């Protein structure tokens, strides 16, 4: 079973309108490489030119911010859900 990537609407336009994608890989980096191979423009929105996370984007692996899990080096397994979330104001 592959990993699921959930996208916000604003990025789904770069993935043929899909808000949910399946991807393969054993780390988050590998998953994003898989996505980038199929949707290069989307890939450029997920990591900056230096391969880092953009300042106004958070990526969650299941329920945890990847910055608590080793960033893009975080290990993933079949069935995991990766969620891309633009920054949200305080409340």
């Amino acid at each position, binding site marked *: 079973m592959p990993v699921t990537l959930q996208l916000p609407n*604003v990025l789904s336009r770069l993935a043929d309108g899909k808000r949910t994608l399946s991807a393969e890989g054993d780390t988050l980096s590998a998953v994003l490489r898989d996505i980038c191979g199929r949707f290069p423009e989307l890939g450029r*929105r997920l990591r900056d030119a230096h391969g880092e996370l953009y*300042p*106004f984007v*958070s990526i969650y692996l299941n329920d945890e911010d990847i910055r608590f899990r080793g960033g893009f080096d975080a290990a993933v397994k079949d069935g995991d859900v990766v969620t891309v*979330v633009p920054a*949200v*104001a*305080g*409340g």
Partner: protein
Amino acid sequence: MTIAAFPLPGAGRLPVTPHRLLCRNCGADFPAQPSAICEACLGPLEPRYDPARVLPSRAQIAARAPTLWRYHEWLPFRGAARLSLDSGFTPLVEAPTLARALGVGRAWVKNDSVSHPTLSFKDRVVAVALNAAAGFGLETVACASTGNLANAVAAHAARAGLPAWIFIPFDLEPAKLTASVVYGARVVRVRGTYDDVNRLCSQVADHFGWGVVNVNLRSYYGEGSKTVAFEITEQLGWRFPTVVIAPMAGGSLVSKLAQGFCEFLQAGLVAGAPPRLYGAQAQGCAPIVELVQRGGGPLHPVVPNTIARSLAIGNPADGPLAAHAIKESGGDAVAVSDAELAEGIALLARSTGIFGETAGGVTTAAARELARLGRLTPEDEVVLCITGNGLKTPDAIPARLLETPVIAPKLAEVAALAAATVS
């Protein structure tokens, strides 16, 4: 004088303020819309107003109703603002005893603990966001909240007749839960931190198309915070203080304070140097303080652990903007412990007669810490932004204050207490 004595333009409907949305990160330009995210870089969008619009004079502003809408030329809405026209313009209270305690020339409290109608500065942001929702024809509003925003969305939506969904951490303070459900909103408690709630609400906004005030209406919501700066400037007699100290949760308030002071300066309504901005957080959740003290770079999120629940945002979206605004102003950021913030609540109350919630305790304790560090001078004129009411977080006051005597209804027992107090 009552609000009704002041005429509102357009018989309760304010004129349109034309605007577009610009990305603060890359500068891309978009038409007004219920979206807060740049399609190019995912940066935050914020309104940009027609530079040719006619701006009011000091006298024209002063003649308007004492609400945040007296500054409507600097507030965005599509269509005409018609909801929540009575929020804002809270008291600016001079605090000489607190000034002496801090060793500064003068001090004031910007007292949003008495904001109408829900006793926090979130009334400002919700007033603007709900008008945006109405202008865009959004029929349901929602929010992710640490409490104060929940109260404000629930109350303002009830008045507007809009259904409201409120998402909060499951373990929020009971008073804040009560002050949300009473208005009839659909309140949902989420097992997780505020950051978990935020993530969920981002998906909710996408999926349901609701007007989530701090997600897809964030561009509008944030503009309401500028009115704190406008009011401070006007209430001081059209001049700036030298220092403003404000609490930081998501970081929006501090960055919008800077923007508000700058906009009044550009409009020629005030002259001189804008104030130094100091941001305050609790040590158990201080990612913006850490970023300011590190001097820049990426924000490092944290897992919050503090009694200051209204500031417990471990991944503050506007943290980098707040850190930038603080540094640009010549200010700084400090974090205080939970014990210090509790003493801050007590200091504020006994020196000003104002009972602030935990965020107010953080702000007051931070002021004391800045004074101890020599960052405040006897020449300084300091404004403390007290953003919420202490009755929402009564359990946060120092426990020793609750050690009160219980006596029989006998004069002798009062006399004994009085004698003990004198001695």
